[in-house]
């Protein structure tokens, strides 16, 4: 007993052990909350107006070319339901498209090996189901078609193209040799090293379309960037006029009730057209203002009892 008594010492008298650390004790009083609500509300309304107006200035032209409806110019392709069908859409106008699909397998199975156990490159369901419709855009000037150059560079993330994905180094200065012993994905008409015959730097894993596709969409209804119109006469944007869009219809969507759309749009500092953000800011901003007024009324009735006490 005595040892215990001697061993036990007087507890340390520090601010921490005595739970007396200096502390800031903020109190959300009306004097702080009402003005800050008002300020936040006004700021939000400002941002909201900016967002909304920006969104309004973005032009969007979109068209469903699934071909499900009989009057659709691509109706024929859905009946043929085979590949290498083309359809032409003439429209007047604005570079984005959307395909509805839903799938999220995360590993390569069952698209890792073919029936002969040869590895599929690139493997996986995502790669296998790459979107393979292609588009050609023509401006119709006095009845003649003038092709609008579509820029496929830089549509994927810079890091994806430059760091994340790597092509195998060429074997005997032949890029194709490096893919020896592998097979192309089942649904692909061409192997990976022949994705873009026009540009040797856009092949293999470093194909821009492939990279865009491999960045998996978040939602079942999604858009992906296809091309930009940046070159030549159209650098400033598509002038008003009649256009024709030639679609190489390859991608089957009807089996899962999918739809395909082509979208022409410009972008702003906030990205593509999206009214949601502007409206949300306007709503929340006005909500804050309204609430600050309500609180002001409530506190007027209670005669700012808190502020008096605080002062």
């Amino acid at each position: 007993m005595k040892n215990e008594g001697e061993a036990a010492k007087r507890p340390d008298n520090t601010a921490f052990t005595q739970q007396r650390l200096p502390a800031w004790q903020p109190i959300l009083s009306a004097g702080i909350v009402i003005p800050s609500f008002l300020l936040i509300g006004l700021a939000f309304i400002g941002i909201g107006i900016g967002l909304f107006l920006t969104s309004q200035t973005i032009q969007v032209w979109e068209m469903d070319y699934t071909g499900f409806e009989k009057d659709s110019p691509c109706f024929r392709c859905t009946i043929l339901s085979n590949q290498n069908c083309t359809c032409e859409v003439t429209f007047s106008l604005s570079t984005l498209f959307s395909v509805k699909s839903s799938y999220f397998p995360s590993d390569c199975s069952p698209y890792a090996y073919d029936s002969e156990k040869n590895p599929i490159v690139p493997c996986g369901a995502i790669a296998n189901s790459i979107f393979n419709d292609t588009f050609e855009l023509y401006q119709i000037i006095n009845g003649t078609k003038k092709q609008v150059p579509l820029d496929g560079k830089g549509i994927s993330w810079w890091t994806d193209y430059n760091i994340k994905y790597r092509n195998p180094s060429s074997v005997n200065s032949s890029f194709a040799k490096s893919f020896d012993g592998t097979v192309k994905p089942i649904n692909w008409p061409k192997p990976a090293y022949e994705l873009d015959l026009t540009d040797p730097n856009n092949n293999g894993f470093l194909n821009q379309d492939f990279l865009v596709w491999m960045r998996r969409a978040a939602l079942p209804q999604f858009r992906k960037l296809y091309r930009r119109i940046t070159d030549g006469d159209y650098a400033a944007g598509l002038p008003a006029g009649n256009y024709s869009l030639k679609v190489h219809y390859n991608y089957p969507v009807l089996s899962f009730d999918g739809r395909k759309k082509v979208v022409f749009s410009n972008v702003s500092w906030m990205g593509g057209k999206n009214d949601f953000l502007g409206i949300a800011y306007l709503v929340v901003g006005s909500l804050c203002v309204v609430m600050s007024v309500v609180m002001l009324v409530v506190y007027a009735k209670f005669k700012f009892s808190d502020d008096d006490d605080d002062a």
Partner: protein
Amino acid sequence: MQCPNCSNCPERRRVQSRCVRRRRLLCGGDEKRVDSRTIYVGHRPCPDTEAFIPSKFCDNRIVSSKYTVWNFLPKNLFEQFRRIANFYFLIIFLVQVSELSSFIICNTEKDLQALPATIECEQPQPDLYKFVGRMHIYKPEQEPAVRSLGPENLLLKGATLKNTKKIYGVAVYTGMETKMALNYQGKSQKRSAVEKSINAFLLVYLCILISKAVVCTTLKYVWQSKEGQDEPWYNQKTQKEKDTNMYLKMFTDFLSFMVLFNFIIPVSMYVTVEMQKFLGSFFITWDKDFFDPEIQEGALVNTSDLNEELGQVEYVFTDKTGTLTQNNMEFIECCIDGFQYKHRDTRCELDGFTVTDEPVNKLQQKAGQEKEELFLRALCLCHTVQVKEAGSEEVLTDQVDGIDGMQPQPEEERGFIASSPDEIALVRGAMEYGFTFLGLESKSMKIKNRENNIEEYKLLHVLNFDPVRRRMSVIVQTKSGETLLFCKGADSSIFPRVKPEEVDRIRMHVERNATEGYRTLCVAYKQLSAEEYAVADTGLREARLTLQDREQKLMAMYNQVETGMSLIGATAVEDRLQEEAAETMEALQGAGMKVWVLTGDKMETAKSTCYACRLFQRGTELLELTVRTLEDGRLKREEKLLELLRDYHRRAVQDAPPVKAGVTRSWSTANQDYGFIIDGATLSLMMNPPREADASQYRSLFLQICQNCTAVLCCRMAPLQKAQIVKMVKNSKGSPITLSIGDGANDVSMILEAHVGIGIKGKEGRQAVRNSDYAIPKLKHLKKLLLAHGHLYYVRIAHLVQYFFYKNLCFILPQFLYQFFCGYSQQPLYDAAYLTMYNICFTSMPILAYSLLEQHISMEILLDNAALYREIANNAMLRWRPFLYWTVLGIFQGLLFFFGVRFLFSNPALQDNGQVFGNWSYGTIVFTVLVFTVTLKLALDTRHWTWINHFVIWGSLAFYVFFSFFWGGIIWPFLKQQRLYFVFANMLSSVSAWLVIIILILLSLLPEILLVVLRKPRGPHSRQVYLFLPFPF
């Protein structure tokens, strides 16, 4: 050891009998139907008995540890799994096998070596104050002599010898059959109410988890049953998938969804809660206010599991002696023949309420010397005090109060030992007036009178104290042959037996002393003529030897002898209260706690202590339920009991104005206060009535009365009865949280039984401290322990629990919602790193810091306003309402996070160059909003920002940002997929992502801010309170 299957049995009696039966089966198998046992002294067969059957008694081993080698695994597993999600073991493996001798009947004769004798006694039973037995001593060619044995012949386990080297005795009960062992309660692991709430919440969340998984699985198969969706061309099944059974597939799908959503069950909460409890309990040990310079010790925390329970106490059961009082009697004054003698020297400190308005000059007026000396002789003779020789061993202090009591007084050369400290005080008091008791030697008492002459008296009879008579007497013979009876006792028991004119002179003094909180005794004497004495002598001897109804016969005899006395004076003795005892009790009552005093002491003593502690006040109407009030010629005891219970029930419950909800009792209102007094005998009658059927009726009446009483006093309690009371209250309606506080070994069972057991590091040894959950040096520390520490701990842990559930709900809800947008393919919304790090790194530290440091109300205010304790009464912060609030908040925020980002992603071209964001960007935006919202929500709740809070809250957010950059900034060689590569950086390059993050955080917190602000103006008086209440419910 407790009978394993009685822990939850509602009927105590049946439990006990079962336990006892079990023990008998284990120990004395041949005694099953016998009511008494026979012990052969020295194991020698006795000539007259028919046959010597060596009976089997249990061995003298007492297992006081919770586990034995054999039951450790099953019992421990059971204890551990009472907590639903306990994955780890707290390995406490204590096997203490103490070998200690137990009940011994003492006999001081030396030639016992060959004593042929048997002892017949009752079967082991836990009542410490009861023992009935007789001893047969066989002498050759003679009738066996029979001696009666009572509780005074019995030594309890743990008793120590005081003024003799050795004694001879016979062990009658051994091992687990000793009365102390029977009074020992098995220590079962205590679980706090918070833990029970956690378990309930956990069940809710488990249901949510399972229903989420079921919903997803069902919808998955509903969706897949549609044409073209089961196996689209882009996502064909493997051969294995096609071959597996549909139901098996469903089951595996269900399991995968469970895995996906399992983060909703906050496993990390258990770790955090344990850490919080463990670290938090240090604040009790560290508190310098709990440090007592006298014993050089601070508070001791034996368990960290119950910190928050300290904030939930509804019933306080306190021991009296040594807890409320210092067990340190002091002779204050006496009154001889109507004249006041006040002995005050420098040693006596003036206590607040001892100041008298009586002019001290009365000291000058004295009674005649003859009367004075007679009174002092009476004080010196009428007691059972023994003198301890100076310089003898320091006395071990593991004692039972009421039976032993010992005042080591170093400044006095003479020590006294007595069963009651009052007696010592009286003998000391006489000493101060010149009469010294020198001791008792072979039936002769020696006293030294004022002239330093030794007077010798022959002690003829001691008429022991008992609670019904409430007095004791001695019959002595003086040298000159006079036979004198001295009697001292409570005024109410003495006054009717003396001449009325004497009473009038003294009554005033007695009453004044009593109202001052002193323990008063009146002293009377009478001279016995030879004939009178002869009658009394034979009567007493006869009564002592009867086996049947011995008590009643003795009582009748005592009453017969103690008549026609003359009153010579009265004494006032003070049992000094513990420091700040009254303030502490007042604070506890102010905090809405009901204080019950459980004591082994006499009723009067206990009652005066209650008055002194302000538990009973002047206006308190006392409802008494004691042996005395049950004495009624007409009715049987149990009938009278029922009648009284009904009567009290009518007065205290039915006629009382309805109690307002929430506030149990306002002591400031003019309502009549009731105090309830019950003694051990009545309690046992009530708990075990002759007719089993009445028990529940008695109990419910009793409990209802007690609930409406401000204070309850239970006197003459055996340790187990204390525990019984605690257990009864604990299991009553609403299962209130109970706290027991005591300092002695006799409080151990009560300390173990209550939800929270507090030991006082008092004079009575360490047993209570060892068995307690918390030990404090003084009673006064209880106030801070409960009102400040307990309150804060409760608020902290309740907030911690709710916050954990909330943060995991709004963490996993988006993941669940995402399944609707990914074809129920079990695609996680967040990256695996985020999933694991969320609870471990990003959101764990702020809440841990909060749960250790938060003081929503400062300690001073908590201590000043005891009523604040009521704000959190009845588990207020962990009821279903606040739980619902937090759940709704979690759901609201989860929905907001998911759909806010979902609408933004209706056009995923969020960068100014038209590049699109994918699913990992989606998840990262949601996760960023989540981490910030959840952390800022905690920041909003924090009322006490120390630098640590600032550090961990802002540090966590900074760490999240830093980690995300780091995690996405490097190609990690060990990862198969670099999913998050530059996702976070890319997200921050998009203005839209910034804007959506800001608006979602603000919108999620908006209702919270509004509630905090709008809740405030609720009348001026509540301001101080609501200012500090951070929680909008």
